């Protein structure tokens, strides 16, 4: 029973993080049909934000907020500079562009900062643990569990209750028709990228918090996780992204807990094997939208 609770908390914590990562990728894909390889670099940018602002005298919450803001700005600028000119090109042109942007940002960081991992100053609660009812939990796990749920609820309110949220949902369904109602394409796409950057920024804080290190390639693992979870949940569907993220979180913690070490080494191979199988059997993902129709 205690083990089960520990497992649940760990899974919900990791799963929440994965859900945020996946949403950040899918919110852009739903509108632009762009699989943004450079999404991981938004995590990286926020991670270096933590490093740079962390070396100042600013209070840590402000450091965290500034780092998230940096990721939001980076996302919007990325769209403006690299993706807007190829917006109406083919999906593969956009995909390759994002691959180039990813390489560009990673190597620029490598050049401008350092290729080596660097330690980030984090508040003490990242390494502390608390005892609740005889069980010990890492504070950071509880924090990421809470933050991810709060972020998901706020995002859901944004999408349901605000005008821009309505426009985003409509654009994900039929982008051209949304524009034909007078909604400005640039606004929606910038908003989608801003949300993507916001989620990447939140993810970065906990992702960096796991190792206390940042390096230029730190965004690779999050973007890979987002790929897997979005393929599992369905690329076009925000609910699917959340479910895919949590599912992957439970699966990862489960494998870590119960799989023998020899097989654990091949975890990535197994996970990506699953991706290929799902793409084949259910190209729309495991979770299908209620009102799907032909894409225009």
């Amino acid at each position, binding site marked *: 029973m205690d083990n089960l609770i520990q497992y649940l908390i760990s899974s919900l914590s990791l799963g929440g993080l994965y859900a945020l990562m996946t949403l950040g990728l899918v919110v852009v894909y739903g509108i632009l*049909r762009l*699989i943004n390889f450079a999404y991981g670099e938004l995590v990286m940018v926020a991670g270096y934000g933590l490093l740079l602002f962390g070396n100042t005298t600013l209070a840590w919450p402000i450091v965290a907020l500034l780092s998230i803001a940096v990721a939001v700005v980076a996302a919007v600028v990325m769209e403006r500079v*690299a993706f807007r*000119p*190829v917006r*109406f*090109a*083919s*999906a*593969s*042109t956009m*995909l*390759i*562009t994002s*691959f*180039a*942007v990813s*390489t*560009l940002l*990673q*190597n*620029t960081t*490598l*050049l*401008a900062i350092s*290729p080596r991992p660097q330690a980030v100053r984090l508040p003490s609660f990242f390494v502390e643990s608390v005892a609740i009812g005889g069980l010990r939990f890492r504070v950071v796990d509880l924090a990421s569990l809470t933050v991810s749920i709060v972020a998901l609820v706020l995002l859901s309110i944004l999408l349901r209750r605000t005008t821009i949220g309505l426009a985003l949902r409509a654009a994900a369904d039929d982008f*051209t028709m949304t524009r034909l109602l007078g909604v400005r394409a640039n606004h929606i796409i910038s908003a989608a990228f801003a949300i993507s950057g916001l989620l990447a920024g939140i993810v970065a804080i906990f992702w960096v918090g796991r190792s206390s290190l940042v390096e230029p390639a730190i965004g*690779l693992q999050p973007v*890979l996780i987002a*790929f897997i979870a979005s*393929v599992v949940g369905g*690329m076009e569907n925000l609910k699917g992204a959340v479910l895919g993220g949590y599912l992957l979180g439970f699966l990862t913690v489960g494998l870590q807990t119960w799989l023998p070490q020899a097989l654990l*080494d*091949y*975890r*990535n*191979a197994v996970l*990506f*094997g699953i*991706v*290929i199988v799902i*793409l*084949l059997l259910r*190209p729309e993902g495991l979770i299908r939208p209620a009102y799907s129709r*032909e*894409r*225009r």
Partner: protein
Amino acid sequence: MNAPGRRSPLAQVAVTAAVLCAGLIAIAVLTSLVGDRVFERVTTVLLISVVLTVALQLFMGNSGLSSFGHIGFMAIGAYSSLWFTLSPDEKNVTLPDMPPEWPMYGWQTPYLPAILLAGGVAALVGALLGVALVRLRGASFTIATFAFLIIVHSVALQWEPMTRGSRTVFGIPELTTIWWALGAALIAVIAALLFKESSLGLRLRAARDDEDAAASLGVHITWVRWVAWVLSVFITGAAGALWGHFITTFSPTAFYISQTFLIVAMLIIGGAGSVSGAVTGAVVVALSSEWLRRLEGWLNTQRADQTTLGQLIPIELRGFAEIVIAIAMILVLILRPSGIMGGREIGSPRFGRAVGPHPNPSPTAVGEGLPPRPAHRETPPSGGGG
């Protein structure tokens, strides 16, 4: 397809092949005449890059699908070629974890069959994977190939008997000379040109331009794609064997995302729509990245020596070449999506004609050298006529 005054397809292939091969031969011969060891290494890497890029073009250019998984097949070719070229004694050094009872422990063949067998191993894996892959389209296809790259990388890092895990394999005989690389590049170029004009290539390009129309003409798309895919990964695997026996020490990190970026950049910058584009891109990118690396090294020396120029450089330069290539690639994608060669083959009648902006700008898929399609094809809703 046949514009008035166009040569027959085979004559066309002959002209293009002659020009491209002459260029590659000239590069190799000039290099060997100079006789500089470093220069020769650069040219050999360049020629192997041509093989890799042309192999990628064979699939991407004709099918219109983007593969990010080819470097995985290069890895398979590089590692599996060790089965065939190393004697058991050499295997004890290079792959010390390989159990002697494994069948491949005792295998040893001359170099040429070893290259072909390595390509064959890659093709076998590719053929199995391909059965599944060719049913996917667009972004799903690319993600699946990328997933494959990660699988190969992850397996290579763990499978110690075969790969020595994350540690570097060394002691591989240096069998690849500049002439082997040249021979492979010439064969790859000719094979890609012949494939493009073959009936399979034509059908594949028809399916790329309009899948539904091609299907209605009876083109079995998945089969045609599968053949191109297997041929392409065979050449890539063989190139992996050549590269391994040139570089002689490598580890799984050599076959991952940055290498994938490099060959995709070569193809996109040159133009995925033609073999000439692939060759041009490989030559241009390989030379400029070599030149940029040297510039980077020189600037770093200046900085270390605190010369007047060196004092202007605030940080040690690294990854400079990748940054420049990435920027070049983004600019090409934005400004000239069909690459330097614009999707044309050298020596084709239309070659050299100014390619102005299309009066009706619309999406140009990577790999398309043909007139763009309408910007918006309105799909009729269910129940709609049409």
